[in-house]
């Protein structure tokens, strides 16, 4: 006869406490500070900070360093707020995808309501503070960006159309424009081109990811192009959008924020990017499956360097050394 000892009330209580201490349960409020940082999507935030900073530094108006620092912090906070709202809304599908299953809400460390509260509060704080620190046009653009990412992309487009990341990409493209508006107080051609560069870059970047992460999106029933139209059509879309990106990237080099250094960098990067997209277009599924989507993964990694190097080149063009070089050319020197 097997005797199973029933746990006493005290043992049960201790077991609950142990579980709480060990991992943190949903809604217990036992999340660590790092969990809240994760909720703000720090990796996306770093890209936002970098591009917004470039937009601010390449503008022809100099700001007080403290004002510039405050503006960047509030733009980053706004991006973090939209990240928290995105995680709150998408908690159900994040649970299903390998890539997102460890996020704070599906992992159980932060309650959904807490993420919503933090997202709404940080949205309000970031927009009002940016308005006070810089100007209200920049604050309005930040508010629109948060709305676009949290409502238009996350709640509406993401689960309803394969064009989700094409239109939704606008949210990620606004930061350099906001940085420019913080410094100048208005939108100009240069700001629009920096926006367009990220906007046109987003589809090939995400579709390359979708090619080798397709099972994740299928499982969560997210209608990525790879799920709704298949990989063949996605490959064709990648080359089409990459070709459309080239004139935008090169065109920015002919404006006030461009110059010979930027143009040289852009020509090389775009040639490599088009070559990569061309290879992806010509690949069969058999070949991709055999080498574990090596070309697609390399294209995805290169796409990150592509964007970083373009914005780094804008930054180089804003230095006195590059200005002196630019003056040697009649096109930019005039």
């Amino acid at each position, binding site marked *: 006869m097997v005797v199973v000892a029933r746990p006493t009330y005290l043992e049960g209580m*201790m077991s609950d*406490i142990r579980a*709480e*201490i060990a991992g943190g349960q949903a809604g217990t409020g*036992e*999340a*660590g*500070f790092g969990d*809240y940082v994760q909720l703000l999507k720090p990796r996306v935030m770093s890209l936002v900070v970098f591009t917004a900073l470039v937009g601010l530094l390449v503008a022809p108006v100099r700001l*007080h*360093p*403290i*004002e510039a*620092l*405050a503006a960047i*912090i509030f733009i980053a906070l706004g991006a973090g707020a939209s990240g928290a709202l995105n995680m709150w809304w998408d908690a159900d599908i994040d649970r299903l995808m390998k890539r997102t299953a460890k996020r704070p809400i599906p992992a159980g460390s932060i309650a959904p309501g807490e993420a919503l509260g933090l997202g709404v509060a940080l949205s309000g704080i970031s927009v009002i503070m940016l308005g*006070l*620190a810089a100007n209200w046009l920049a604050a309005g653009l930040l508010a629109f960006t948060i709305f676009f990412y949290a409502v238009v992309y996350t709640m509406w487009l993401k689960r309803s159309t394969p064009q989700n990341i094409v239109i939704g990409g606008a949210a990620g493209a606004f930061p350099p424009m906001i940085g420019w508006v913080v410094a100048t107080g208005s939108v100009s051609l240069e700001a629009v081109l920096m926006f367009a560069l990220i906007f046109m870059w987003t589809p090939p970047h995400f579709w390359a990811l979708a090619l080798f992460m397709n099972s994740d999106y299928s499982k969560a029933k997210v209608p990525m192009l790879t799920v709704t139209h298949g990989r063949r059509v996605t490959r064709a879309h990648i080359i089409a959008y990459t070709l459309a990106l080239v004139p935008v990237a090169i065109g920015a080099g002919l404006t006030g924020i461009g110059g010979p250094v930027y143009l040289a960098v852009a020509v090389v990067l775009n040639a490599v990017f088009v070559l990569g997209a061309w290879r992806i277009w010509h690949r069969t599924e058999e070949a991709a499956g055999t080498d574990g989507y090596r070309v697609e993964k390399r294209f995805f990694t290169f796409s990150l360097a592509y964007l970083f190097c373009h914005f780094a080149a804008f930054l180089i063009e804003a230095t006195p050394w590059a200005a002196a070089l630019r003056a040697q050319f009649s096109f930019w020197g005039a």
Partner: protein
Amino acid sequence: MMAITREHELHKRRLGRNIGVSVVLLAFIFLVFGLTIAKVQRGGSVEAFDHTYRPGIDPAVRPLIGSGE
């Protein structure tokens, strides 16, 4: 004794979060303070509201100052 140990661990865990929040709030205070200093240093418009009559900014008097009368 056991209960105290458990509670201590729990409090320690919360301490990390509380310190994090404190650091963020302090940073926010310093940022707003710095921002205020930067704005005041730059603020030419503040001059118009210092409750002191300044002939230099009085539209009625300014032309007379310019003409040397």
